[in-house]
């Protein structure tokens, strides 16, 4: 069964490593939905958060192939685990006198932010998980989305509750 997996990959923070990971996905025919890279609390280690779709066998291969790369320190799949995931989106949406207040209302409900105002458009910023972002997009589509950019999902396992 094809499922969406968020995997976290700790890698050596070195030039060329991103290309190695991205190349592995394309060479083996794995599809990436999103990929986000950034520093971690350790200066020579970066974390990549990769969202990938596939059945169990594909995911098993993805993990095994990633683990095979000497530049990869650790791979963990969040599926079936308690975790938080967030994505940041910027949306430029058409807004005229008559629609502006409606849009602002939506922005408020979603606890999003308006970060730029122009004569005929607004830029809205929001963070959230996939579901929340999709919901916002759906509502704003009605007004006309001119441009959209996303950072890609980042994720972190939840702390132990007990």
């Amino acid at each position, binding site marked *: 069964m094809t499922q969406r997996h968020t995997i976290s990959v700790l890698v050596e923070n070195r030039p060329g490593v991103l290309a190695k990971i991205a190349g592995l996905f394309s060479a083996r025919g794995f599809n990436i939905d999103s990929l986000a890279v950034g520093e971690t609390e350790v200066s020579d280690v970066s974390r990549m958060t990769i969202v990938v779709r596939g059945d169990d066998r594909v995911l098993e291969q993805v993990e095994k192939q990633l683990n095979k*790369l000497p530049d990869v320190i650790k791979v963990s799949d969040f599926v079936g685990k308690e975790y938080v995931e967030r994505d940041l989106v910027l949306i430029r949406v058409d807004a005229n006198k008559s629609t502006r207040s409606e849009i602002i209302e939506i922005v408020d409900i979603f606890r999003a932010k308006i970060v730029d105002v122009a004569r005929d458009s607004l830029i809205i910023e929001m963070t959230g998980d996939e579901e929340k972002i999709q919901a916002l997009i759906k509502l704003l589509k009605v007004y006309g989305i001119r441009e959209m950019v996303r950072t890609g999902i980042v994720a972190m396992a939840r702390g132990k509750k007990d």
Partner: protein
Amino acid sequence: MKMKGAKALIECLKKEGVEVIFGIPGGAVLPIFDYLYDDKDIRFILSRHEQGAGHMADGYARATGKVGVCIATSGPGATNLTTAIATAFMDSVPIVAITGQVMTTLVGNDAFQEADTTGITRPITKYNVLITKPEELIYEVKKAFYLAKAGRPGPVLIDIPVDIQRSEVDFKYPDKIDVRGYKPKYEGHPKQIQKAAEAISRSKRPIIYYGGGVIISGAYKELRELVRITEIPVTSTLMGLGAIEYDNPYYLGMLGMHGTVYSNRAIQNSDLIIAIGARFDDRVTGRLDKFAPHAKVIHIDIDPSSISKNVPVDIPIVGDCKNVLREINKLLKKKEYISLIPKKDRKEWWRRINEWKKEFPLKYKNDNKLRPQYIVERISELTKGEAIITTEVGQNQMWAAQFYKYKYPRQFLTSGGLGTMGYGLPSAIGAKVGRPEKVVIDIAGDGSIQMNIQELATATCNKIKVIVAVLNNSFLGMVRQWQELFFGKKYSAVWLQQRKKEYGECKKPEVDKRCGIVPDLVKIAESYGWEGIRVTRKDEVDSAIKKALSSKNSVLIDFWIEEEENVFPMVPAGRALDEMLCDLG
């Protein structure tokens, strides 16, 4: 101690026990060659093409089990290495390739002879690195040798900008290295080993299918022991030939596309496949959804990604074949496991296999014509099965696999995974450098031999004696065979000679079609300082081989074999393993 980067590199290589390097110099590696000139310990062998140097390092590595080293300049030198690197990658061969790069300040500027070498070789190396600071150099060399050998071996490339070769570094070679992202598992899990031993004991129709991993891990003794104590039939992949000796009573020969009928049947009818250091390649499994329909699978491999990649596995064991087999053998010798064996079923299983063996032996038409299978048999006989055999790719490779009687691991060197024409001659040279006491013979095709024929010079100039036996059919034979069998005999772009009507009148009617042969391999051999012998008749075979064996010089024998001989048996691509074509003749 302070020294130049280039000198430090050479000192590192010595610490790693490197005794020989193959390669070609150029602008971006000049500092290294300057120090190599003065060095007394490392032998440098100048090839005539970087691909040749890469295959030499590969042949050296496969024949000895050590890491092979090759070196090339930036740009075209590095791109010429790529086929050899990919060949080593597919067959898990430990080589370290060192390439020069343009100055760090010029990287990315389309400088003269710049190529993005690490970018190009990323998918065909186990690990590669562009050195960006002098202080990284020594650590990365250590890491390269460690990674080339550790776990599942493979090629590693170090790209060194020329200014780093010239800059000062502090030479301190680390004794140990810990690569936090690479921690192969060498010991199998005891629970899994137990499960495997039990499944082996209980099975009614088991078969051992092993591959190159057994040779790489040095597990052939443990494998032979397993076969001896269990009396289970055993079949080898192309890459595993020699780990089980050809005359082992339980050995069924090679399996797969050109394997024996009985080994393929045994696989298809088995109830348990014990896969050891093999990877269920498509040339082995045939049509996947019809592969061994009744079999449970135990898979022992050091590379977890090989397990359950193509064929679902019931009992996976990640670990080094040698360690795992040692543990399994211990259990299998115990009474409680022996008592599980269904002896009657096993007897019946062998009875069926022996019947298939009798019905479909590996054979060929041994008439008066000059047939390639006969030639390989004679080479085997006259070298007493002791030679190291390398091959090119195509029919020659398959005949060399089928008809030479291998006894040892590291005796048969072939490009199995990538199927690289042009592999045989340079790898033979590398093998001979590593194992000078051995007779080394490249069993070649007339197409493939021309892909690295320039290395005839390397053998001569470095006094490396090898023998090349060309099974010359004037065709790209294996492609012609496919065209004959599956494309209605349309021989498209496979005839390697001039067309008769263009050549005109035949001046030597006794050699009929092949007068005006291009090239005359005997003359080529001679012009490179080799001896050349032409054999056109069966009764000349023995004397030619004997002459080649006794000569001081390298010898090329140009055997003019039957042009349209085919390799049989054969599983057509996309068919199940038991749908084999056999020789109709």
